[in-house]
């Protein structure tokens, strides 16, 4: 069995392993590096040269996040929109998918076209802003929920899944006198749990990551999401609005510290953490789902 590998195969293996190791380092190391800097003393970080391990270990940056009302409030808003928005979206999208999975639906073609068109054409930034303003959604929590309630692509994902369910199950429930609502809630939804979990992950991550709606549709500090606050911090850093380290440390309890590599990294880490936490589920549902979809198409 132990066949001697050809020299070209050895070279091949070397190339493959080195390349993949490079991919690993390039994708993983940046996260490790921000973790290291976030746990390093803010004043010491300015010296640079932090690569693999904190030089002066401290959790002070994280503590200052929890002392900062703006940051703490933004975490709350982000959690709230994710927790409220995700189930509402999943429910609305799956109801829509169920209705459109019935080809006998009145004007099925027109409804499909009506929705699919929105995937390829839209009003764009300014008209959308104006409409949202005219609906009174500016500075309202619901601006995080309603404009993004439906994802037509997600609907197609769920609909495809529903269409592959054995028709007999619904038929027999129909015989027992169940109406469409009961069929949907009692027969179809329980069977769709895998695809619904995938879609919920999709939507939930989208809510957690979204910054744009909070950035342009809300002005109240109480409605700024974590990502929107992080944009602000990034902008301040980019425009070089640096204050001296001392001043920044003195202010860190009251407002967002302007410079402070460590604190910017700590906020970045806090924003990344939930994604890492749902990662096992991503592996289980999401990636498999994509694989399946790809194989089928």
């Amino acid at each position: 069995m132990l066949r001697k590998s050809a020299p070209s195969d050895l070279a091949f293996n070397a190339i493959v392993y080195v390349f993949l190791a490079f991919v690993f380092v390039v994708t993983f190391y940046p996260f490790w590096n921000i973790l290291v800097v976030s746990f390093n003393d803010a004043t010491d970080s300015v010296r640079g040269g932090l690569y693999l391990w904190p030089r002066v270990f401290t959790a002070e940056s994280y503590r200052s996040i929890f002392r900062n009302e703006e940051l703490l409030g933004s975490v709350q808003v982000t959690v709230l929109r994710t927790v409220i928005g995700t189930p509402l979206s999943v429910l609305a999208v799956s109801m829509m998918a169920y209705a459109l999975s019935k080809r006998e639906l009145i004007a099925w073609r027109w409804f499909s076209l009506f929705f699919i068109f929105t995937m390829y054409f839209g009003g764009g930034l300014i008209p959308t802003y104006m409409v949202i303003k005219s609906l009174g959604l500016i500075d309202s929590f619901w601006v995080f929920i309603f404009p993004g309630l439906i994802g037509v692509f997600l609907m197609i994902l769920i609909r495809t899944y529903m269409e592959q369910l054995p028709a007999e199950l619904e038929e027999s429930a129909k015989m027992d006198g169940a109406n469409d609502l009961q069929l949907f809630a009692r027969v179809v939804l329980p069977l769709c749990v895998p695809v619904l979990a995938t879609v919920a992950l999709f939507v939930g991550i989208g809510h957690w990551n979204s910054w744009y709606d909070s950035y342009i549709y809300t002005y109240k500090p109480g409605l700024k999401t974590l990502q929107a606050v992080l944009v602000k911090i990034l902008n301040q850093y980019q425009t070089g609005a640096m204050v001296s380290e001392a001043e920044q440390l003195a202010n860190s309890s009251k407002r967002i510290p302007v410079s402070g590599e460590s604190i910017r990294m700590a906020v970045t880490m806090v924003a990344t953490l939930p994604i890492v936490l749902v990662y096992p589920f991503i592996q289980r549902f999401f990636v498999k789902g994509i694989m399946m979809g790809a194989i089928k198409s």
Partner: protein
Amino acid sequence: MERAFATSTGRTRTVRMTLASKIYKQRYLLLMLLPAFIWAVFFCYLPMAGLYMAFVNYKPALGGFWTNLFHSPFVGLDWFRYFFHNGDFLKIMRNTVASTMLTLVISFPVPIAIAIAISEVKGTLFKKTVQTASYLPHFISWVIAANIIVTMLSSGGIVNDVLKFLRLTDESILFLQEGRYFWWIVALGNTWKEMGYNAIIFLAAISSINLDLYEAARVDGAGRFKQIRYITLPHLKPTIVILLILALGGVLNAGFDQHFLLGNGLNQDYSDVLSTYSFRYGLQNSMFSYASAVGLFNSAVAFLLVVMVNFASKKLNNQSLF
């Protein structure tokens, strides 16, 4: 049913009755469709109607948006003319196309290479670790990605440290302050963010290749380079062609996030793309109608491109993307 319309009025009524009874029979289905329908009307079709802004001189006044809109003076295509004839148009188009094309050239082959490499590795642990790390960047927001990129590229960041270590530069390069690096930063950033995730679809395609083919090639004395050249790549070709065509359809869709978040006053000559330009003129300079016209130009051309791309893929594969 068709004949019913043509004959007596009595029968027409039965047709109407059947429609009404059909609606009644499907009332729960229609009810379930209602939230999505309302959503589409309010957040997709009303903004599309609002695109009328691009053809008037919209001035915010006391009334609501729609009242103001229909009382604003009609200016025809003036805003489009203004866009095409002022000096910004060429620059914005150059930036948009340069950024998306450079992204395409760099970010397209990398996932293919990753997928092939992963499929050639035997050990599961190594494979899993690499894969798991490689799609993490896809799931984080561009805000986090931009924070990471800005940090890595700063004067004391790791990229400059490595360049100095390799003696490629003596002074720190200010990557984000000099415009000429910008397209490369976006292209490499896009590649970094999506390469692991985009490899999934190629991995799926590779996993569907019949293993006997490799066995036969081995018997014939083909090394592993040759197996990739003559078996794996030809089998990936349909997937590659479809994805390439799709990517060409998005040539005007330079992502707003990366250009907005990584762009700054110093690199604006290179970082300003259609979407950020429209954003700046609309929400920061309050030139609402002009910004709408730029946005409409962007979506209309992008839509045409998608239609063309769909047509091309139909021709090639006899299957529609829609």
